[in-house]
């Protein structure tokens, strides 16, 4: 309708879209058919990828950005925002997705990292970015690089919520602890966190991150979603949890329901009935260090 716009997008516009996704569920999908099921079930956005994290785990090999044909097929069939993942540090993959007009780019530890030292400088893109974080320092480093949304890393593809809970508690606990510090102590804390002092001051003043804070990595049931929301997540990502379960459509609806009604136990109960089997879960003690996605990035 308007002429094609170019150049970096204003940060407020990027964060503005993240605000619109609050209270919603963002679902991993690998085909247009799955994207349609996700949309019909009430997903607030879909994440296009070639293999869901549990399959990446199982198959091994290098996991890359999704094929363009799959992303375009998904963009064509749903009206909700379409996100896609790039490898950590792979700014050329990010440029491709930006040119394709995806609504959000996830610089994700689930894919095989392209750069072990540097994340993408995210300011220069038109698409907003979401990045994973395990603690406040990591979250603020990503925001300083231009991320417009933070999510927990959790442990993707595990069906085990323990890491997402750990990361949510850590980020929110770190935020609460800032409120007790004096001004000069915030500077020292910024140094310890490895984060810019301006951002640390902003968080101390407002009691929250300057961008939305979502949960991801290991959510497999409606109660998992309600748990994350109770711990301060503002929306949830569900990866393998939907399409690796026995009845994806039913489970997708149930997770959406529980995310809206997380404060009402009887609604979470209703959402939890007759769902069939959840995805198989992994005991994380049995994962070798190199199999832990959350350890990727810094």
């Amino acid at each position: 309708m308007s002429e094609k716009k170019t150049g970096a997008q204003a940060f407020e516009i990027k964060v503005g879209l993240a605000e619109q996704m609050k209270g919603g569920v963002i679902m991993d999908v690998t085909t247009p058919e799955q994207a349609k099921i996700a949309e019909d079930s009430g997903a607030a956005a879909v994440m296009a990828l070639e293999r869901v994290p549990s399959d990446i785990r199982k198959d091994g090999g290098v996991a890359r950005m999704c094929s363009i044909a799959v992303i375009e097929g998904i963009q064509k069939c749903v009206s909700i925002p379409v996100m896609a993942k790039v490898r950590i540090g792979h700014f050329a993959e990010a440029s491709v997705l930006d040119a394709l007009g995806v609504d959000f780019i996830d610089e994700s530890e689930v894919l095989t990292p392209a750069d072990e030292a540097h994340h993408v400088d995210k300011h220069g893109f038109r698409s907003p970015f979401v990045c994973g974080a395990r603690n406040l320092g990591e979250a603020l480093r990503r925001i300083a690089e231009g991320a417009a949304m933070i999510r927990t890393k959790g442990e993707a593809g595990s069906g085990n919520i323990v890491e997402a809970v750990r990361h949510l508690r850590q980020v929110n606990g770190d935020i609460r602890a800032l409120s007790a510090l004096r001004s000069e102590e915030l500077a020292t804390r910024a140094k310890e966190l490895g984060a810019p002092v301006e951002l640390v001051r902003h968080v101390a003043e407002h009691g929250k991150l300057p961008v939305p804070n979502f949960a991801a990595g290991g959510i497999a049931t409606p109660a998992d979603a309600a748990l994350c929301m109770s711990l301060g997540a503002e929306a949830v990502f569900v990866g393998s949890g939907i399409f690796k379960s026995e009845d994806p459509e039913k489970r997708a609806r149930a997770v959406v329901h529980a995310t809206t009604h997380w404060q009402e136990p009887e609604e979470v109960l209703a959402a939890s009935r007759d769902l069939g089997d959840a995805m198989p879960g992994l005991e994380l003690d049995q994962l070798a260090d190199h199999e832990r996605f959350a350890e990727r990035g810094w």
Partner: protein
Amino acid sequence: MGSPLVGILAIQGDFEAHGRALERLGARTRRVLRDSEIAELDALVLPGGESTTISKGIERLSLWEPLREFAASGRPLLGTCAGAILLSRRAESPGTEHDPVPTLGVLDAVAARNAYGTQVDSFKSRVDPGAAAGLEGFECTFIRAPVLTELGPEVEVLARVEGRPVLVRQQNVWASCFHPELGLDGRVQRLWLGL
């Protein structure tokens, strides 16, 4: 009225940003999900978010009729972005294979969804000269925004951007294609609530 009690439909979307913006103006706010909660309100916001997602929630919670009754009651009702789409008489997605979204039909206009494109085409712009008194120079944030077309005779245009209506009202029902809840300029909500 003293400090009005403004409900914000909290199925999905930027209900938190709406709450912050309204509280800055001195309104009391409440997130609502139920018919019984809606009945007590002085005013109601349908926030931005995903219109498909929110419409499915409205269906599941059987809120179509209660929301239409709220509009008919004459109390102030504001829909922003996805909320504006839901107020319209019909929502379209021109040139796509996307499923239609059911609407409340309380605003005599057609909403073209994602009319500007995807997020990379989102933008900010000031309202055109000639906006309603009090809204001069307002900077609007459009995010995957709809365009309102085929306005009925009872629909008053309060502001335009690039000639297109972006803030309209039909009596007590207000619709905004942009997001007055993002940013610190509270003039749209102030005008809407008569504060």
